[in-house]
């Protein structure tokens, strides 16, 4: 018996039971049956033709007008049949597109991921974990000459626009001439690129810094990014690493303030995304001081171990449900 024959038989059973008993239960069974029809991709006009076939079986003496009226109904259903098939093919296409987009976006993200560089004077640790499949946080290390530049950015907006935006930033950064690697100038440049190219609801927060090993100076600037921390080893204290500035993508003419800090042996520069401080627990938000005390707890370990441990503890505090992307970077001066 083919699937179609089985359906016809089932329909005939249901219909004849209903015509005899006319109960709500059998009506409801008819409703359930329609799901089965959809599963088997039976179109509306197919159902009418099935109905005609069954009615012929059940009522061989059906009046000619009645019989003809069904044929008429069948013709009148043709339009619905087209709409149904179109819907199906669109749905298939949409599913295909969605999965292609997902693959493309995650592939791009993998391509954009920056390796954590080996750098003689600095011990570098990085953890960057997305809350959903796509990470809206972005970080990038570039070694240029003797110096090391580091960027952390949070791209507001998800999916394709965010992924495209991320690559725009990466390539804009890679193509800047070396003399413009000064953080505040780099941000001004990027801001112009972003402002022209992103949707009005989107913006990017970014922190950019450059460490120069000869002078042991860290030059930095910020575009609306969550402040990081600076650990001053001599005083054994954590300070906020404040770098004020408007987020990228809001106003074309924004300028950024240059900041610099002397980095001594044992000092740490700690960069983060707002996912770190916007962690929510059952008791409320994690305050910045708590993040600091977690870093303090592990600060004798290598940088990579510090960031991993801090992430694990914060993740546990949130009941292992990240609400926002999480990025934490530590640079510690070794010699």
């Amino acid at each position, binding site marked *: 018996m083919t699937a179609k024959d089985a359906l016809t038989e089932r329909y005939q059973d249901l219909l004849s039971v209903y015509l005899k008993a006319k109960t709500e239960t059998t009506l409801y069974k008819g409703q359930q049956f329609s799901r089965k029809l959809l599963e088997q991709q039976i179109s509306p006009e197919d159902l009418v033709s099935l109905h005609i076939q069954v009615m012929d079986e059940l009522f061989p003496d059906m009046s000619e007008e009645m019989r003809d009226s069904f044929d008429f109904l069948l013709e009148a259903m043709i339009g619905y049949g087209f709409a149904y098939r179109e819907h199906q093919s669109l749905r298939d296409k949409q599913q295909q597109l969605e999965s292609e987009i997902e693959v493309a976006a995650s592939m791009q993200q993998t391509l954009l991921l920056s390796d954590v560089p080996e750098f003689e004077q600095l011990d570098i640790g990085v953890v960057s974990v997305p809350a959903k499949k796509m990470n809206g946080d972005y970080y990038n290390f570039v070694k240029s000459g003797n110096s090391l530049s580091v960027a952390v950015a949070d791209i507001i907006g998800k999916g394709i626009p965010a992924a495209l935006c991320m690559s725009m930033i990466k390539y804009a950064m890679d193509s800047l001439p070396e003399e413009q690697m000064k953080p505040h100038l780099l941000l001004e440049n990027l801001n112009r690129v972003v402002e022209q190219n992103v949707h009005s609801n989107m913006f990017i927060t970014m922190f950019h810094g450059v460490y120069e090993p000869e002078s042991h100076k860290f030059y930095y600037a910020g*575009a609306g990014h*969550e402040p990081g921390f600076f650990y001053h080893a001599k005083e054994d204290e954590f300070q906020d690493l404040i770098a004020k500035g*408007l*987020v990228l993508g809001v106003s074309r003419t924004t300028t950024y303030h240059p900041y610099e800090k002397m980095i001594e042996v044992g000092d740490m520069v700690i960069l983060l995304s707002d996912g770190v401080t916007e962690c929510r627990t059952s008791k409320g938000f994690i305050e910045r001081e708590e993040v600091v005390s977690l870093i303090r707890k592990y600060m004798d370990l290598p940088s990579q171990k510090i960031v991993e441990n801090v992430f694990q503890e914060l993740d546990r505090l949130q009941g292992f449900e990240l609400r926002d992307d999480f990025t934490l970077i530590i640079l510690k001066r070794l010699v």
Partner: protein
Amino acid sequence: MNLQINQEQINETYELNLTGEVDAYTAPKLKEVMLPLTEKEGNIVIVNLSGIEYMDSTGLGIFVGALKSSKANNSSLKLRGMTERVKRIFEITGLTEVMDIESGVKGEAL
């Protein structure tokens, strides 16, 4: 958690009183109400945020979009009554420098 938007209008002045949270889930709802108001020249849109306990960056994006729209369309956008937590994210992102934000904590009547 949800977002409630209560709208009052006197002539071309619209006041939106928000209660709840502005995050990725509720932001589209806010955009739908607020953005069209900023698109009409001469409109004054006042958003009272005293009932907002939490706003994330997607929520902030809606205000950035509304700010751009009000500049492009010659309407005006004012924010008032921010709680400390909300104020902090406007400060960090530098938006306090470019947006019209009324100091004073709770929003008074028009």
